[in-house]
């Protein structure tokens, strides 16, 4: 390494040491410390975020997909039960109307469908309910009633 390069290195280091010094001196360290503490306190108070911190639009899309899935499943079950006389009514899938709903409406609908069907409801009521609730939500007697009705 030449003497010229050595001098250049020293100059570069001096410049680097000074870079940002004035801006750092103007930083209000006490205000910064207060700001950091305030943010830490807010984070401590804030409820824990879900393990799937998806953006709002993604959660809305997932909710819509779930509702559409439930609707289609319900339509298929009901279609099988009433295929001889209700074919025309089921021509338009349940999802078609759902696509026109806003995210808030979909969320509200999802909350509604998560309510389980009333225990001990008759088979007809269970059939109607399958359009609005998932099969997982049905009790064993309701599932049995549903199967019996499909068998005719």
């Amino acid at each position: 390494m030449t003497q010229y390069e050595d001098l250049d290195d020293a100059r570069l280091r001096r410049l680097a040491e000074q870079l940002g010094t004035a801006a750092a001196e103007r930083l209000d360290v006490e205000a910064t410390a207060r700001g950091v503490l305030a943010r830490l306190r807010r984070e401590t108070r804030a409820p824990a975020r879900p393990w799937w911190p998806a953006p709002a639009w993604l959660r809305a899309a997932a909710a819509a997909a779930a509702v559409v899935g439930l609707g289609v499943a319900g339509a298929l079950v009901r279609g099988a039960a009433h295929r001889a006389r209700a074919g025309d009514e089921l021509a338009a899938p349940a999802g078609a109307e759902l696509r026109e709903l806003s995210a808030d409406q979909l969320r509200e609908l999802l909350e509604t469908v998560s309510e389980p069907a009333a225990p001990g409801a008759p088979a007809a009521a269970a059939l109607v309910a399958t359009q609005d609730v998932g099969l997982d939500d049905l009790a064993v007697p309701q599932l049995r009633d549903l199967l019996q009705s499909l068998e005719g």
Partner: protein
Amino acid sequence: MPDAQPAAAAPTDAALIAAYRGGDEQAAAALVRRHARALARFLAAAGGAEAELDDLVQETFVRAFRALGRFRGDCQFRTWLLTIGGNVLKDAQRRARRTRLVPLDEGVRSADGDPHERAVAAEAAARLAAGLARLPPMQRNVFLLRAQQGLEYAEIAAALGTTPGAARVHYHHAVKRLKEYVA
């Protein structure tokens, strides 16, 4: 028995970290007071705009306190903090979609010397800042940790997850490129 009690030694970073993790938030404030200026100097040199410096410093400390459980003490707390600051700045610059440079008169703001010398020094500092902004992040961080913060290669390597030899190579590449801007 002496009249005056000996001055209590300042608590170490490790002691403050342990105190904060034990629920003493004033320990966090003490860590901020101790390291904020060095962090601000690093961030300003790496391209952080002065108007955003306070936000960048705060964000760096908050991320560091969140991640304290992952700090193993392989390097100094300050070195670890500076590397987090480098990531915070990179994220901010990505969001801003532009690289900000240190103002022309930044860094060499001295009342000493004649105006011509000050202007020449300010111009060199501006060229250095521009050069730093063009370096790959690893080279820039290694250069600043070494040349600005005066850290050893082993310490830099531990903080950046590389080897001292690799850190030395990054430093020399950075110097070579920066000389083209500053000379």
